[in-house]
């Protein structure tokens, strides 16, 4: 708005954020790569565009990009030693869309290696720290993007979500994040982890900002065979959603034992706010919720073991320095280039796809995946939106779960079901626990219900200020 009124130029705005990144990145490690000259050059172009009267809603707005999106000429590491020196020869579709809208590339944000993690501790470039408490994790895998938005190092950021990688870090850092319906945002140039689940989406302070970002990000792309050809939609069209009569489903499996009592209390308070405005709550059941993590840890590693076979030290990326033959070159390159969690998932994936185990593990997981998707279609016969906690706990201390993969995986129990079904999911801040750490409210909707989800979130954010609170550790 200040840009439109010409009170501030894109160059001034970009400088402001670059200064803030310089000041805070040593503390938070949210960015892997920043190219100030490139950002400022884009800002000058945006200012010229505005002076010609050709500015759109995002022209001149700095956006940080998760380092999983390929950027032509700017290093793309995916948080891995394997790609530590990699510069992509092309731009991801999402990057092209933001460039076309006149947005400024503010830099590439830190992430769990190849998006495999829920704490940002698996990054080759070191963990990201939570701006609300630097001894705690920001969540993952889009932890750098979430921490950057929370600490006001960027007004907006991109992320990707395979099992919760946008929503969980959004919840743990007190920002808003949306995982769209599978197929809405092109995966072209987004480094693949689990292709049947991966979906790009935005992180920002408010739902209204997410709608603006979605308008730029979403759209058909022939280069992604799973991209959906649909008429363009305005994701902000339902921001004035009528809450009266809205049916909100509360899955009993999401309000169960094992969830932090503070998290449950904040989520119940948020649900009550909707009830007071005329929304009707219905108890629903998603009976296969407890199987989702197991299904995910068959399907995602299986797809990852196939996708990551491309990292062989031949065409790009790391290559071991010593080897006797081709096979040893592959084995050493991959042993050196991948971190422990990525190797673990490749090995699990290789195992569940191997001869004699394929039916028992992989096909069985795909069958249970359908049961989980059916749970949702049954539930949406009784409600318009589903609400519950994004994560069973608030941000946990660094190192608390990094030794036991299963404990780490179970943290994603409420975010894994939506991508298995291909459904959209949103997390918005809804208060704090006793330690002053943010709590996330998850809003799930039916296929293509993003505008309605954002509308409900926007109404809530008009009346509350949780999304505007700034972390104490990174004062403005």
């Amino acid at each position: 708005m200040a840009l439109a009124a010409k009170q501030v130029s894109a160059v001034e705005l970009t400088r402001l954020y670059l200064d803030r990144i310089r000041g805070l990145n040593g503390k938070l490690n949210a960015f892997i790569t920043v190219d100030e000259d490139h950002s400022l050059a884009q800002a000058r172009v945006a200012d010229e565009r505005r002076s010609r009267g050709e500015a759109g809603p995002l022209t001149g707005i700095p956006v940080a990009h998760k380092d999983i999106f390929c950027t032509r000429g700017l290093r793309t590491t995916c948080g891995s030693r394997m790609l530590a020196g990699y510069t992509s020869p092309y731009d991801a579709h999402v990057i092209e869309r933001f460039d076309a809208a006149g947005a400024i590339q503010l830099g590439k944000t830190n992430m769990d290696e190849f998006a495999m993690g829920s704490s940002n501790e698996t990054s080759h470039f070191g963990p990201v720290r939570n701006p609300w408490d630097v001894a705690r994790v920001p969540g993952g895998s889009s932890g750098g993007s979430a921490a950057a938005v929370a600490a006001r190092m960027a007004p907006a950021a991109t992320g990707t979500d395979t099992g919760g990688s946008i929503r969980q870090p959004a919840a743990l850092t007190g920002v808003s994040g949306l995982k769209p319906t599978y197929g809405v945002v092109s995966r072209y140039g987004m480094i693949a982890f689990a292709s049947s689940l991966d979906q790009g989406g935005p992180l920002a302070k408010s739902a209204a900002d997410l709608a603006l970002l979605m308008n730029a990000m979403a759209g058909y792309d022939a280069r992604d065979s799973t991209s959906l050809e649909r008429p363009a939609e305005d994701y902000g069209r339902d921001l004035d959603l009528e809450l009266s009569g809205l049916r909100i489903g509360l899955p009993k499996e999401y309000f169960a034992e094992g969830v932090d009592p503070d998290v449950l209390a904040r989520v119940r308070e948020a649900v009550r706010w909707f009830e007071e405005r005329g929304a009707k709550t219905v108890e629903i059941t998603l009976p296969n919720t407890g199987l989702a993590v197991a299904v995910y840890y068959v399907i995602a590693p299986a797809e990852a073991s196939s996708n990551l076979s491309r990292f062989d030290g031949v065409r790009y990326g790391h290559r071991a320095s010593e080897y006797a033959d081709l096979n040893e070159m592959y084995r050493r390159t991959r042993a050196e280039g991948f971190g422990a969690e990525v190797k673990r998932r490749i090995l699990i994936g290789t195992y569940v796809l191997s001869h004699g185990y394929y039916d028992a593990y992989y096909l069985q997981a795909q069958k249970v995946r359908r049961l989980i998707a059916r749970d949702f279609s049954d539930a949406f016969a009784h409600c318009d939106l589903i609400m519950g906690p994004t994560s069973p706990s608030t941000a946990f201390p660094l190192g608390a779960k990094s030794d036991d993969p299963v404990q780490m995986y179970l943290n994603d129990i409420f975010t894994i079901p939506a991508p298995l079904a291909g459904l959209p999911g949103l997390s918005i801040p809804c208060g704090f626990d006793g330690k002053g750490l943010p709590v996330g409210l998850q809003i799930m909707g039916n296929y293509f219900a993003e505008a309605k989800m954002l509308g409900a979130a926007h109404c809530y954010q008009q009346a509350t200020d949780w999304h505007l609170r700034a972390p104490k550790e990174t004062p403005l």
Partner: protein
Amino acid sequence: MSLTPDQLQRIATLARIDVSAEELSGVTDRLNRVLGLIDQLQAIDTQGIEPMAHALDARLSVRQPLRADAVTETDQREYYQRGAPAVENGLYLVPKVIE
């Protein structure tokens, strides 16, 4: 189902990842914990349920897109090979495979 270190070595060979002797027992232990988690799927009755390979096949009929058989890419071999570890005369170099 639980893996022995020998079985893990075989999988590591299939995955083309060296697992050193020192790493072997730790990696096997952590992997077995994950296999313990996914083993709960074995008890679920899925008789008559079709496997779901695609996120949207539950609700939407997704047609496989076809494009015209036309050249859309130009030759940028040199540009694309700039990031390769070893290249000579436009070819990727790998250790000798055939004696």
